C-alpha cells in the first residue's frame, strides 16, 4: 500500500533520509521510533507530501506521491494525518473542524457531513463537545478531535506524528485508547511514537530509525525484548528508565 523506494532527502546540506526502502502492506500497524533528529517525523510527512524528496520514489496505492502530475487533493483525501501539536482550527467549533474537509474537499452536503462528523466524534468519545471551541478543551480532548478530523474523510491510511508527545501524562491513555480501537477496525496505520505499551499491544511491526536511516525492524516483541543492534538496545534502555 505504501512503498518507499531508495528515498533520499536533504535539508540543505543535511542528509535527513538515507536510502529508505520500506513496504507497508494494507492493514498493517507500523510503529516508528528512534532518537530525536532520526528522521522519523520527516519520513511520515513525506508520505502525504508535506515534505518533498530529492531522490527515489514514494508510492501510495499505486500513485507516485511526489510526481508533478499527481492529484494532491485526491491523494491527501485518502490519508489522515494527526499532528503532535493537534493544530485544530481555533476559530471554528469542534464540529466545524471535523466537517471542514468533507464539505470542501469531497463536496458532501452540510447536513450529511454533520452526520458523518458526529459519528466520528462518537467514535472518539466527544459528541458532547461538538459545539465547543478548541481552546475550551484539554490537550487529550483536542487530540481526539484531531483524530476525528482525520477520520472524517474515511481515509484508507492514518498517519500519526508523535500524537501523545505534547500531552500531559494523564491524558495519554485516552488518546491511545482511541488509536487502539482504530486498529481493531483494520485501519492501515503508521505511528511515530515512544509509547512502547501501545506498540507491544497493537503494532504488527516496529521500525527503529537513527540519523536518517532504518537501522532495525521487527515485531514488537522481537524488537523490545531482543534488539539486534547496539543502537536499538541503547535507545530502548534510555526510554525504559522512566
Amino acid at each position, binding site marked *: 500500500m505504501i512503498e518507499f523506494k531508495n528515498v533520499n532527502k536533504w535539508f540543505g546540506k543535511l542528509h535527513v533520509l538515507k536510502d529508505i526502502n520500506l513496504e507497508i502492506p494494507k492493514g498493517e500497524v507500523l510503529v516508528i521510533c528512534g532518537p530525536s533528529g532520526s528522521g522519523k517525523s520527516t519520513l511520515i510527512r513525506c508520505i*502525504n507530501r*508535506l515534505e518533498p524528496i530529492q531522490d527515489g520514489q514514494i508510492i501510495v496505492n499505486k500513485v507516485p506521491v511526489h510526481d508533478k502530475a499527481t492529484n*494532491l*487533493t*485526491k*491523494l*491527501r*483525501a485518502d*490519508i*489522515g*494525518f494527526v*499532528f503532535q*501539536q493537534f*493544530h*485544530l*482550527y*481555533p*476559530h471554528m467549533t469542534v464540529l466545524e473542524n471535523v466537517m*471542514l*474537509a468533507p464539505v*470542501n*474537499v469531497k463536496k458532501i452536503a452540510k447536513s450529511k457531513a454533520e452526520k458523518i462528523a458526529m459519528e466520528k466524534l462518537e467514535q472518539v468519545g466527544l459528541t458532547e463537545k461538538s459545539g465547543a471551541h478548541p481552546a475550551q478543551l484539554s490537550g487529550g480532548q483536542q487530540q481526539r478531535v*484531531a483524530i476525528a*478530523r*482525520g477520520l472524517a*474523510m474515511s481515509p484508507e491510511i492514518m498517519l500519526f506524528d508523535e500524537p501523545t508527545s505534547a500531552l500531559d501524562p494523564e491524558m495519554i491513555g485516552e488518546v491511545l485508547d482511541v488509536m487502539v480501537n482504530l486498529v481493531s477496525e483494520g485501519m492501515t496505520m503508521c505511528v511515530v511514537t515512544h509509547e512502547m505499551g501501545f506498540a507491544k499491544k497493537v503494532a504488527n511491526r516496529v521500525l527503529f530509525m537513527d540519523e536518517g536511516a532504518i537501522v532495525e525492524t521487527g515485531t514488537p516483541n522481537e524488537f523490545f525484548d531482543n534488539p539486534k543492534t547496539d543502537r536499538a538496545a541503547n535507545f530502548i534502555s534510555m526510554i525504559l528508565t522512566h
Partner: protein
Amino acid sequence: MMAFYFAQLVEIFPFFLKGLWMTSKIAFISLVSCTLIGLVLGIFRSSNSIILRYLVGVYVAFVRGTPFVVQIFIIFFIFPEWGIQLEAFPAALLAMAIMGSAFICEIVAGGIAAIPKGQWEAAASSGLTNLQQLRLVVIPQAMKIILPPLVGQYVLLIKDTSVVSVIGVMDLTRVGWVTVVRIPEGLMVFTLVGALYFMISYPLILLSNYLEQRMAI
C-alpha cells in the same frame, strides 16, 4: 481687526464644510479601495511564487521609499504625457489607492505570516487546496491580527488625503490654503482646519487604541 476677520470666517464657514465633505469622500473611497487592493496584494506577497512576491515587493518598496507628494506629482503629470487626461479628483483617488494599498499589503502579509505553519499543514493534509487553506483557515485567523494596525493605517490615510490639495483638489486643506490668501489670519484659519481634521481622525484613533489593547490580551 480680529473681530472683522472672525466675522468673515463665520461667513465662509460653509466653504470649509464643503472642503470637509470632499476630504471625507476621498478618504472613504480610498479606504475601501486600498483595503480591497491591499488585501489581494498581501495575499500575493505571501504566495509560494517567488516572482509574485518579488513583483509586489518592488511595488511596495517604491511606494514606501518615495514621498507621497512626489508620487502625486508623478501620477498627475505623467498620464497626460501618455495621452490620458486626468482630472485632479480621479488622479487623487488613484494616487491614494496606489499608496495606501502598498501599506495595507504589508499589514495583511504580516498577519498571514503570523499564522503558524501547522495550520496550513493541517488544512493541506485534509486535501484542501491552497486557495481553500487561505480562505477557510488562514485568513479568518489573520483578520484578528490585521485589524488593529489596519485601523491605525486608516488614520494615517485620512491625514494623507491632505496632500492631494497640491494638485488643486478642493479638499479641507486647500480650502484653508485658498482662504488664508483672502483672510490673512493664518492662525485662525488653520486652527479651524486642524479642528475639523481632528474631528474625523480622533474617533478612529480611539478605536485603534482600543483594538490594540484588546489584541494584547
